[in-house]
């Protein structure tokens, strides 16, 4: 495996420029939808949900919504977005004939995907603040966490992208990997409602530690398990990031 160089920033800048031109077309996905879910589930469903410690349901799910939409942003960007650039537009082919290497391109895409997570996480955080749901100044660190989680989810997504033959393959990725995480990583209900075995499996899902950490920052309540969560995110990020550099190189430099 070869590392990436500072030139990855060129790919990132390219993606940023495109986003600045087209963001209004994407805004429904990363602004309107999470806010809708937050309000519908939080206020609508929340009226029927009694939380144990007198907390409001919308306060419970808000950090989880931030974490999962950070995940969605990175995942969409580095699956459909990246695959479109790679196979349909042949953008990667054009770029790897310049001083950028495949590793630079992949790293640029991953950091851009993470930037999308940061933007999404921040937007929802601002909305949550407006609704007076945030109870701790630690919440200011949430965008940073969204970025870190974004690197992890972008790496997983682009690894998948580097391996699949067509657009249709992403149905598997979203239906069998992303959507289950959305429901079983403690976003809408505590994992403790599940049997032991499901709880254990849930900890393997990369969204779970992100939800736990976001919630901790959101409420300002910390415990030792969070260090484990952070370590898990970092390990998974390194793992998937490195592999995706190799698999994408194998796909493009043939």
């Amino acid at each position, binding site marked *: 495996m070869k590392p990436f160089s500072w*030139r990855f920033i*060129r790919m990132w*800048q*390219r993606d940023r*420029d*495109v986003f600045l*031109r*087209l963001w209004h077309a994407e805004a429904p996905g990363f602004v309107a939808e999470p806010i809708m879910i937050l309000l519908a589930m939080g206020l609508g469903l929340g009226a029927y949900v009694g939380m144990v410690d007198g907390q409001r349901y919308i306060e419970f799910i808000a950090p989880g919504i931030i974490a999962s939409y950070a995940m969605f942003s990175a995942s969409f960007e580095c699956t459909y977005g990246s695959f479109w*650039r790679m196979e349909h*537009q*042949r*953008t990667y*082919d*054009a*770029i*790897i*004939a*310049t*001083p*950028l*290497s495949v590793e630079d391109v992949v790293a640029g895409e991953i950091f851009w995907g993470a930037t999308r997570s940061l933007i999404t996480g921040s937007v929802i955080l601002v909305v949550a603040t407006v609704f007076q749901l945030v109870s701790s100044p630690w919440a200011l660190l949430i965008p940073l966490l969204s970025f870190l989680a974004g690197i992890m989810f972008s790496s997983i997504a682009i690894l998948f992208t580097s391996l699949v033959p067509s657009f249709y393959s992403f149905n598997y990725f979203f239906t069998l990997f992303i959507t289950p995480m959305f429901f079983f990583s403690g976003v809408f209900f505590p994992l403790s409602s599940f049997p032991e075995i499901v709880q254990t499996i849930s900890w393997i899902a990369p969204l779970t530690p992100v939800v736990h950490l976001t919630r901790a920052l959101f409420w300002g309540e910390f415990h030792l398990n969070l260090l484990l969560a952070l370590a898990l995110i970092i390990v998974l990020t390194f793992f998937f990031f490195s592999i995706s550099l190799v698999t994408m190189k194998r796909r*493009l*430099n*043939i």
Partner: protein
Amino acid sequence: MAIILTQNLTKKFKGLLAVDDVNLEIEEGECFGLLGPNGAGKTSLIRMIIAVSPPTEGNIWVLDKDLAVYPRQVKAILGVVPQLDNLDDDLRVFQNLTTFARYFAIPKKEAYRRSTELLRLFQLEDKHNSRIRELSGGMKRRLLLARGLINQPKIIILDEPTIGLDPQARHLVWQKLGELKAQGITQLICTQNMEEAATICDRVAIMHQGRILTQDSPQALVSRYVGDEVLEIEANSGSRGKIIEELTSCGLDFVDAGDMIQVFHVSRDELARTMVNFPERLRQRPATLEDVFFRLTGRTLAE
């Protein structure tokens, strides 16, 4: 001095030998053409030279730099114009150039200056803010060429630069390539257009089934493999056998091309003196690079 040098260059894909032991020496400032039928290995060879595809065996030096060791430095001085349009559809015309300039770490002000200049040079100024999909095929091709020059390359590598263009657009491209050559920019061109090769290339190599069969100036190849003129004898099935028999016995160089018999390295008068039964239906025409191509790569479809 050879500006591009390949040594025993070989590329295998899953057991298939796409490029087979290619040794090329491309001189600084020349326009070198790579000819060959589909599947001959031209694009595979080019992809290795532009450092996006590692050779299975062999070495490449560009400006005395080993490509395997210094891919970035080499790519920085190459201009690549691909066969398939890979312009960035997400960006407007001008942004395509400035964004590409950024990949080469060209400062913003300079990138804007060069992009403006290149759009003017390729007569695309009024498309400055157009979407890529609004451009015609000829405009896209010109923009690809402009993009390939954004880093002021020492070598420009073009894969089928005029494919699908109308004669006007084709001549504009040839004219621009001529101007670049006058500036001393080395050109490596992949083409299947023999007229193009004969018009703009100083030397050409003919590639077939992964190997370089021959290389020289177009004129030298024509006189070596075909002669100045080609005589084409129209023969019906009745007379055909006889004519072939006589041509063979006279030791003449000919090819049975199916609908006609082509005779090479001989003039009409010489043929008239040699043959007893001089065929009536005979046409004489100047020999071209296409004749060389057919002689070396055959008339059957490779794929």
